[in-house]
C-alpha cells in the first residue's frame, strides 16, 4: 500500500521537493549575510539614534524578496490542498480506479489511512520546514518592518512559525474531503480553493483576535502613534490621524486605535481625521511660529486631554497565538479526517 501511494505520488512529490530545496538553499545562503548587515546597521544606528531611518532603509531594500517568500509560505497550504488533496480521491472516483484498488486485499479504511498519513505528513513537514526557514531568514526584516507588515499583522502571521504546518494539513484534508464529496477533480479543486480562502480570511478577521482577550489601554498622543496631522492656519482648525502603532509596544497587533477627546468620547477611528481643538494661531501648533515642530504640537494636543485608546495584542503573544492556531487547525484536520473515514466506509462506492 505504501508502495502504491508512493508510486502515484512520487511525481508531484519530487517536483515539490526540488522547488523547496531550491528555496531553502537560496534562503540559507543569503540569510547569514542579511543577519550580519542588520547587526552592523543596528550597531551604528544606536550610536546616533537614527534607528527609525535605518529600519526604513533596510526594509525598503529587501521588501520584494520579503513579500515574495511570505507569499510562498502563504500559498503553499492552498497549493497542497489544491493539487495533493482534492485530486487524491476525486481522481480515483472519476476514473473508476477506486473499484480496482478497493478490491485488492486491503480494506478501504487502510487504503485511506496510508494515503492520508503519508501525503498529509509530507505536506505538513514540507510546509513546516518552509515556514521555519522563512521565519529564520526574515527575522531581521520582521524587526524592521512597519506595523502593517510586522509579524503579528494578519498577512505576515500566517507565513511565520508553525502555523503554516497546521494550514497545510488542514488544506490537504479539506481537499480530500471535498474531492470525496464532489467526485470530480476540477470542481473539487475550485471548491477547495474557495473554501480554504474563505476560512483563511475568516480566521484572522473573526477568530484570531478573540483567541486571547485583547489588551485595551489609553496612551498619550505622540509621534509614535500618530500617522498624520493637519493644520489649517486660515480656518483655525486642526486634525489628527492615528496610525496602527501602540506606543511602547513595538510590533503589537492593534485591533483598533481610536482618538478620544478630553471628555473620553471617541471622535475618530484608526486612519480617520479626528478634529482637535488646539490653538493654531499661537503655541506649538501655530504654523506661523517658525518651522513646524510636530512633536511639540502633539505634546500640546496630549496636554489638552486628547488620548489614543488602543485594543491590541502585544508582540509576546506571537508564539502563544501560533500554538493555539496550529492546535485549532489540527483539531479541524482531525475532525475532517474522521469524517473521511466514516464516509468512505459508509457512503462511498
Amino acid at each position, binding site marked *: *500500500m505504501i*508502495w502504491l501511494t508512493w*508510486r502515484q505520488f512520487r511525481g508531484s512529490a519530487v517536483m515539490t521537493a526540488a522547488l523547496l530545496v531550491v528555496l531553502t538553499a537560496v534562503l540559507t545562503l543569503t540569510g547569514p549575510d542579511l543577519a550580519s548587515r542588520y547587526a552592523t546597521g543596528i550597531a551604528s544606528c544606536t550610536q546616533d539614534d537614527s534607528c527609525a531611518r535605518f529600519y526604513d532603509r533596510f526594509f525598503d531594500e529587501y521588501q520584494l524578496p520579503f513579500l515574495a517568500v511570505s507569499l510562498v509560505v502563504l500559498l503553499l497550504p492552498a497549493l497542497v490542498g489544491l493539487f495533493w488533496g482534492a485530486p487524491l480521491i476525486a481522481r480515483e472516483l472519476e*476514473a473508476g480506479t477506486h*473499484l*480496482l484498488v478497493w478490491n*485488492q486485499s486491503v480494506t478501504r479504511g487502510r487504503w485511506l489511512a496510508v494515503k492520508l498519513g503519508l501525503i498529509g505528513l509530507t505536506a505538513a513537514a514540507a510546509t513546516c520546514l518552509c515556514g521555519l526557514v522563512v521565519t529564520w531568514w526574515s527575522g531581521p526584516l520582521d524587526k524592521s518592518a512597519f506595523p502593517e507588515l510586522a509579524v503579528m499583522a494578519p498577512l505576515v502571521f500566517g507565513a511565520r512559525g508553525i502555523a503554516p504546518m497546521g494550514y497545510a494539513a488542514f488544506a490537504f484534508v479539506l481537499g480530500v474531503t471535498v474531492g470525496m464529496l464532489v467526485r470530480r477533480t476540477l470542481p473539487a479543486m475550485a471548491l477547495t480553493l474557495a473554501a480554504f480562502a474563505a476560512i483563511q480570511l475568516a480566521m484572522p478577521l473573526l477568530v484570531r483576535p478573540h483567541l486571547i482577550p485583547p489588551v485595551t489601554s489609553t496612551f498619550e498622543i505622540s509621534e509614535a502613534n500618530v500617522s498624520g496631522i493637519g493644520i489649517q492656519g486660515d480656518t483655525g482648525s486642526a486634525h489628527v490621524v492615528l496610525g496602527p502603532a501602540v506606543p511602547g509596544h513595538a510590533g503589537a497587533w492593534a485591533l483598533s486605535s481610536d482618538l478620544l477627546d478630553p471628555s473620553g468620547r471617541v471622535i475618530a477611528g484608526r486612519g480617520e481625521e479626528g478634529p482637535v481643538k488646539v490653538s493654531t494661531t499661537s503655541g506649538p501648533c501655530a504654523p506661523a511660529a517658525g518651522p513646524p515642530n510636530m512633536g511639540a504640537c502633539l505634546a500640546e494636543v496630549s496636554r489638552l486631554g486628547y488620548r489614543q485608546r488602543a485594543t491590541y495584542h502585544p508582540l509576546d503573544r506571537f508564539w502563544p497565538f501560533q500554538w493555539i492556531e496550529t492546535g485549532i487547525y489540527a483539531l479541524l484536520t482531525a475532525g475532517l479526517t474522521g469524517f473521511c473515514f466514516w464516509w468512505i466506509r*459508509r457512503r462511498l462506492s
Partner: protein
Amino acid sequence: MTSVLEARALGKRYGRRWALRDCTVDVPAGHVVGLVGPNGAGKTTLLKLAGGQLEPTAGDITVLGGRPGATPAQLARVGFVAQDTPVYAGLTVADHLRLGERLNPRWDADVARERVARLGLGPGQRAGRLSGGQRAQLALTLGLAKRPELLILDEPVAALDPLARREFLQGLMEAVAEHEFSVLLSSHLVSDLERICDYLIVLVDSHVRVAGETERLLATHHRLTGPRRDPGRLPADQHVVSASHTDRQSTYVVRTDAPIHDPAWTVSRLSLEDLVLAHMDGPPAESRRAALEVQR
C-alpha cells in the same frame, strides 16, 4: 454444498429509489453464474453488494460465508473486475502487477507473468495506452492472479469487440478450468453467457425473476402453442412466465416440473435467450410471485 452467495430480502436504496429490492438468492459454489437483466435492473448494485463495495439498506448478504468486504481476508477471497475494467492510466503494466503483488497475500506471480506474456502486453507499456480489450485482459489478470475463490465481473465484455470478447471469455474459462473457482458475472446480453454459464439469475426491475441451473431451467420451461385458452384453465403446476394471445391462438411460456401431455398444445423447447426474454417480458404480478416461489 456451500453457497458462494446468499442473500435474504436484500435491498439497496439510493435516496428514494430502490436499486435492488427484496432479493433472495442462494447460489451454490462451483458454478459460473450469469446475472442477466436489462440495463438498470440492479445488476451492478447486486454485484457491488457482493463485492463489499456497497452496504445493504435492507436484508443481508453473505459471500463465501462471510460479510462482503469486511476484512482483508474476506477481500482476498473475492476478486472483482468492475464495469469498464478500470486501470490506472498513468501506471505501466508491470506497475499493475506489482500493485497486485503488494496488495494481495495470495498473489500468484506466475499466473500474472504468464498471462501478460501470452497476451503480448509489454511490461513497460502504460495502461492508458492499451486498447479496450487489452485493458480488460489486464484487469482480468489482476483478478485471476489474486487467486480468489469467487471472481465477480460486472459487464466485462460489454465494451469489447467480438474478437476481444471471445479472447476475454476464453481466458476466463481457461482459468476456471485450471483453478476451479466460482464466477459471478453480469451481462445484458444472454448470448454472451449462453456458453459459459451453468447457473443463471434473471434480474428485472430490481427483483430476482428466476434463478437456477441453466440445464434445469431449460428442462422445465416450455413453449405451448395451441387454440386460444384462458391462463386460469391451465393445470395448477404450470406457472405462466409469459403469455400472448390472438383471436384463436394462445402462446404460453410455462415453467413446470411435470411433463405436458395435453394433446391440444404444440410443445417446444426454448433457447436460453428465449427463456430469459420471456421472463423479462413483464408477466402479470401474480405469476411473477409464482415464478419466485418455484425458485424457492
